[in-house]
C-alpha cells in the first residue's frame, strides 16, 4: 500500500516510513522506535532526532491518549471544502508523541480538553480510490 493513499489529499507520496500506510490498511496504528537508543516516535521518523541513528523498527500504538486541543474548521482549504465544517483534534498519545486527526463520532458538546480518546484507523468508503486515514473517537 503506497504512502500516497494516506490522507484525503496526500502531499508526500514518497517517504522512508511508507510502511505506515500498509499497517494502517490492516487496522494498525504504528510508530517507530530507534534501534540504537530506543526513542519512540509518533509521527514516525526514519532517522532518530535524539541520537541520529538511522535504523528503526515499527512498534504498534494502542491508539489511546488524551485530547490536547481541538477546533472546528469552517473556512476550509481547497480539497476539503466538500466536508466542511469538520473538527480536528490533537491527541497526546499514551506511548508518547502526538497525532492530529478529525474527531469522529463524538457529539460536539461532549468534546473536552484532556478527555480520554482512542485513535481508530479508517478507509474512506465514499471515495472510489482507496484512501486511508484515522479518526479520534471515544474509547
Amino acid at each position, binding site marked *: 500500500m503506497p504512502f500516497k493513499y494516506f490522507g484525503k489529499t496526500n*502531499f508526500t507520496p514518497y517517504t522512508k516510513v511508507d510502511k505506515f500506510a500498509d499497517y494502517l490498511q490492516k487496522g494498525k496504528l504504528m510508530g517507530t522506535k530507534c534501534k540504537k537508543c530506543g526513542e519512540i516516535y509518533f*509521527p514516525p521518523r526514519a532517522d532518530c532526532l535524539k541520537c541520529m541513528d538511522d535504523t528503526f523498527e515499527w512498534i504498534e500504538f494502542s491508539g489511546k491518549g488524551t485530547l490536547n486541543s481541538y477546533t472546528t474548521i*469552517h473556512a476550509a482549504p481547497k480539497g476539503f471544502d466538500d466536508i466542511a465544517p469538520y473538527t*480536528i483534534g490533537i491527541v497526546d498519545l499514551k506511548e508518547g508523541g502526538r497525532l492530529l486527526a478529525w474527531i469522529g463520532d463524538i457529539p460536539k458538546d461532549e468534546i473536552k*480538553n484532556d478527555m480520554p480518546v482512542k485513535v481508530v484507523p479508517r478507509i474512506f468508503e465514499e471515495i472510489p480510490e482507496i484512501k486511508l486515514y484515522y479518526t479520534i473517537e471515544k474509547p
Partner: protein
Amino acid sequence: MKVGIVGIGHGKFGNRSDATVQELTFEPFKQAIEDAKNLGREDIDALVVGSVPEYHMQRSLPGVVAEYVGMNPKSVWLTEAACASGSAAIRTAYMSIKSGMHDIVAVIGVQKMRELSTEDILALMGRVGDVQWESIFGTTFPGYYALYANRHMHEFGTTKEQMALVAVKNHYYGSMNPYAFFQKEVSKERVMGSDEVASPVRVFDCCANADGAACVIMTNEKLAKKFNDTPIWLEGMGSASAQMSLLRRPNLVEIPSAVEAGKQAFEQAKVKPSDIQVADVHDCFTIAEIMAYENLGFCERGKGGKYIEEKQSYIGGKTPVNVDGGLKAKGHPVGATGVSMTTEIVKQLRGEAGKRQVTGAEIGLTHNVGGIGQYTFVQILRR
C-alpha cells in the same frame, strides 16, 4: 560597531490591485532614501528583499525589484522565513554591515497576496504545518492558531472576550494610521458576532491578507550621523526556531522560538522586558498577541488575557503594543510585515508617530513570527 537605521519608508497596505510587486516596492524605497539626508541611491551597497515567493506570479523576485528600483548592478538577494521574512531580511542586512562587507544596505519587505484567491491562500498557508502528517486533515493557518487558543483557554481561562479586546485595541490605533488597510474602529460586539473561521477564532480575530511594501536603510555607526541626526540603533537581534509540527512541540500554549529569540535580544541589548516602552508584535490572530505578551515577558505565562483586559497594552499601560494597528488593522503582506514593524518603532523612537506617539519612548521592540512559530525574530531598538 553598532548598526543603525537612517531611513524608513512605508507604502499603503491593503488591496493594491493598482500595482505590480515591483511597483509596490518603489514607493517605500523612494521614501526611505528621501527620509535619510544626503543619501543617494548610488550610495547603497546592497539590497535585501524579504518576501515569500509562493504568492507571486513573478519568479525570482529580487531580480525584478532590483531592476525596477534601479539597484543594478549592486548586490541583491532574497531572505525567506515565512511571515517573518521581513525581519529575517533585516537580520541578514545587519550581519552584512556588522561583518564590514557592506556599509549601507537597503531592506525591502514586500508581498502581493491578492494575486491568489482566499481558497488558494488557505490551502497554501495550511501547508505551513507538516504536510505529511497534518495537512492531509485539512489544517488551515487560522486552524493552527485556534488549536493554540483552545488550549490556552483551557489551561489559563483565557476568554473569547479577551481575544476580542485585542482586535478592538488594534483597530482603535489602526484608525489613526494612514498606511493601515482598515482605518476604522470596531466594537467588541462586532468582533464576537463575526463568523467562526476555526473555533474559537472568528473572522475579526484574524488579520487580513494584504498587499504592501516597507523599507529601511541601515548603516554602521561611523556613517550613521551623516545620513540622519537621530539614527535608531539595532541593539538586540534575537532569532530562534521551533519545530515545524505542533505535534513535536513541548506544549501548545506558547511559541518557544519567541521565548528564545526574546531572551537573546534582551541579553544583547542589556534591557529587561519592563524597559520596553513601545512594541510591535506579531498579532496574526488575537491569541497570537496574547501569547506574545507572555512569551516576551511583558506579563507572566497565562496572564496575557488579563493584560489586555486591564488595558496594559494601550498607550498609558505598562507596555503599549501595536499602537500602529498591528497586523490586525494594517493588514499582513507577509514579507512586508517585519519591515513595517521596524519602521513603526523607528518612528516612535524618533518621536514622529503623531497621534499614536508614546511620549518619550527611547527603547522599542519588534516581534515577528514566521509560520505557526517555526521562526521568531525579536529586535530591540534604541534611540
